[in-house]
C-alpha cells in the first residue's frame, strides 16, 4: 500500500527508491544523478504549470519531468 510511483508523491512527501522502469539511457542518467535504488528523496515542489517536479536527493535539488518520475517505483516513508 505504501508503494507508489515517484510522480504520485505530493509536495513534502518522502520516499525511498525501489526500482527504475525506464529505457536504458534514461535509467542510467537518473541513477548517475544519484537516484539509485535504496536512495531517499523528497518532493520539494512542482513547476507552476504542474510539470516538471523538483526533488531533494543526496543533499541537492534535482528536477525531472513526471514522465520520467512515473518510471520510478517508490516506497513512501
Amino acid at each position: 500500500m505504501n508503494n507508489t510511483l515517484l510522480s504520485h508523491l505530493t509536495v513534502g512527501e518522502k520516499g525511498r527508491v525501489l526500482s527504475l522502469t525506464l529505457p536504458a539511457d534514461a535509467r542510467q542518467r537518473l541513477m548517475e544523478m544519484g537516484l539509485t535504488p535504496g536512495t531517499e528523496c523528497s518532493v520539494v515542489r512542482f513547476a507552476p504549470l504542474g510539470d516538471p517536479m523538483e526533488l531533494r536527493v543526496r543533499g541537492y535539488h534535482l528536477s525531472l519531468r513526471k514522465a520520467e518520475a512515473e518510471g520510478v517505483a517508490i516506497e513512501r516513508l
Partner: protein
Amino acid sequence: MNTLLSDANPAQEAAVLTRRLAIAGNPNCGKSTLFNALTGMQQKVGNYPGVTVEKKEGTFYGSQGQQMTLLDLPGTYSLQARSPDEAVSRDVLLGRIPGTPCPDTIIAVVDASNLERNLYLVSQILELGIPTVLALNMVDTAEEAGIVIDPEELSQKLGIPVIPLVASKRFGLIPLKQALSRADLPAPKFCAPMPPALAAEAQQIAPFIEAPAQAQFSEAILLLGLSEAALAESRHSSPELRVKIREAQQRLNSAGMDVCSTAVDARYQWISRICAETVRGTPNTGLTLSDRLDMILTHRVWGSLAFLAAMALMFFSIFTIAQVPMDWIRDGLKLFGSWVESQMPDNDFRSLVVDGIIAGVSAVLVFLPQILTLSFFLGILEDSGYMARAAFMMDRLMSRVGLHGKSFIPMLSSFACAIPGVMATRTIEQRKDRLVTILVAPLMSCSARLPVYGLMIAVLLPDTSALQKSGIMLSMYMLGICTAFLMALIFKKTILRSETPILLMEMPPYRLPSARDLLLRMKERAVIFLKRAGTVILALSILLWALITYPKPENPEAKGSEVIAHSVAGQLGHALEPIIRPLGFDWKIGIGLIGSLAAREVFVETMSIVYNVGQDQQGDGVETLQETMRNEKREDGTPVYTPLVCVGLMVFYVLAMQCLSTLAVVRRETNSWRWPAFQFVYLTLLAYVGTFIVYQGGKLLGWQ
C-alpha cells in the same frame, strides 16, 4: 632523442617543458570560477575538431615558476560518453583527440556541499590512472550547511591529494598550486569495486580496447554499461569489439544482471562508504536562504511575475542601455566615414573604403553592445542559478513542441538579436535540439526589424494612434513566435526527429555571481563574435557594396537612384520582379530586399537611395521617405504601397532570413555551411509563401 631535440623549434621545446593540466568537474561545482581564478586573462577559446564543443585553454605558473597550460573540460556529471560534452571529456583524458595531447595531471573539482554526487565523476576519473588532485571547492558553503569534510581522511581513502578551497574568494589557491607543482604526484591505482561477474567480463574485454593500459578496464566497464543504440554511436569501438561487448552483455543479462545500472549502483555504494568515513557533522535540516528564495521565485504567481520582470529588465537594458553605444558606434563611424570622404579624391577606391569597409566594420561593431549586454545578463542568470529555475518554469511549454526548457533563453534572446541568441544555444546538450533552436531562432523579431516595421507602419497608417501602431507591431511579433513554435514542432517530427529530450536538471543553490567571472565571460563572447563572425560579416558587407555599386552607369553625373538601378543589385531587382510580383512587390522593393541581406535595417537606407530622398537632410530622412513611398505610383497610376503590400512586406520581414551576419554565426556554431544554407532556403520560402497568402488572399477578399 638528440636529433628530436635539435629539430624541435623553440615552441615545441617549451611545450615539452610545460605541464599540461586539465580541469574537470560537474556543472555548478565552481569549475569555471577556479579556472578563471587560476588563469585570469590568459585564456583562449577554440573548438575541438569535428564537434561544436568549446575548447577553452589558459596558462598559469606553478609555485616554482613552471608554466602550466590548463584545459577546461566541459562540465559533466559522468564520463559515460552519451552526449558530445561527455565524449569530448573522455576522449581528451584518454588522449584520443588529434591536436590535444593527453593531460599529465587532472584537477578534479568537487562541490563540498554536494560531495556524494560530485564523487561519482571523480570515481570515473580516478580509474584513468592519470595523476589527479582533488579541489574540494566551496568548503565555506558546506560548513554553513553543517557539512564538515576531513580532507586528510578523504585524501587517504582516494589516494590523491585533497585541497580544500573557496575558489570565489581565491582561498586555497596557493596550496593547490603547490600540490600541482609536485614532480612526484602519484598516479592513482583505483578501480571502483564492481560485482565479480561484471569485473570478470570487463577483464575479458579490456585487452581489445584502444586506450592506455591502465584505463582499459574502466573503459570496458563503461562500454558494457552502454545501451545498444549508444554503443552503435560510440566512435572508439571496432565492430568486432562491439560484438564481444554485446555477447558479454547478453551473458550478464541472462544471469539476471542489469548491466546499465549495476556499475552506477556499485560506484554509489563505494561513495556511500567513503562519505560515511570522511564527512562529519550533521547537515542542517532547516530551510536555507536558497529554499526561501525559491518559494517566491518558483511560485505560481510571484515566480511568474518575477520571471516576467527579469526578462523585461533584460530587454529594457538591451533596447536602452545597449542602444546608446550602438548609436555612438554607428554615428562615430559615419562621421569618420564622411571625414575620410572629404580627405580622399572622389573615385571607386574612396567608395570602397567609405561605403564598403567602414560601413562593413560598423555593421560588425554595432552588434557588440548587444552581445556584451546580453552575455552580461545571461551570465548573471546562469551564475546565480536562476537559469535553471527559468528552464524549470518554462519546460512545460517548451516540451509541447518537443524542446527542452533550456531552449527558452536562446529563443528569448533572439528578440534582441539572433546572433547572441544562436550563441546562447550552447547550453543545450542534445545536438538535434540545439539545431532546432538555432533554426527557429531568427523567427523571433529582432531589433533590426523595428526600423522596417516602423517605416511600413508609417507608410500604411500615417496618422494613426500609438496604440494602433503597437497593436500592429505586436501582431508581427506574435506571427514570428507562432511560426517558430510551429516550425520547431515540424523539425522535431521530420529532419531532426528525436524524442523530447529528458529533463534531468540540477537546481543549484542561488549564488552571488562574481564580477570577475562575468567580465571574463563578456570578453570571451565578444572575442568569439569578432574573430569568428566578424570577418565573414565584413567580407559579405564589402561584397554587397560591390553589388550595389557596379557596373556604373555611363553618365558620371548620375544620381544615387540611377547608380543603384544600373548596378548588379538593380539588375537583380529587375530579374526578381517576375518572382516577387505575385507578392505585390516591384523591382525597387526587390533592390531593398537584396540590400537588406546585410542587415534588415539597411532596407530603410537602401529605399532612400532608391527613391533619392533623405540623402542630405539628416534626421527627418525617414519622414520624407514615407511620404515619397506613399506617393509612389505604378505605371497604371495606382499606388505601389497599398495596405496589402505594406502588410505583406512586414510579414516578409518577420519570416525571411534577411541577415547574413546570423548565417555567418550559424555557420560557426554548426561547423558547416549546410545548416545555414538550409535555414536561408526554408525561411525565404516561408516568407514567400506567407507574403503570397497575405497579398493574393487579401486581393481575393476584395482588399487592396
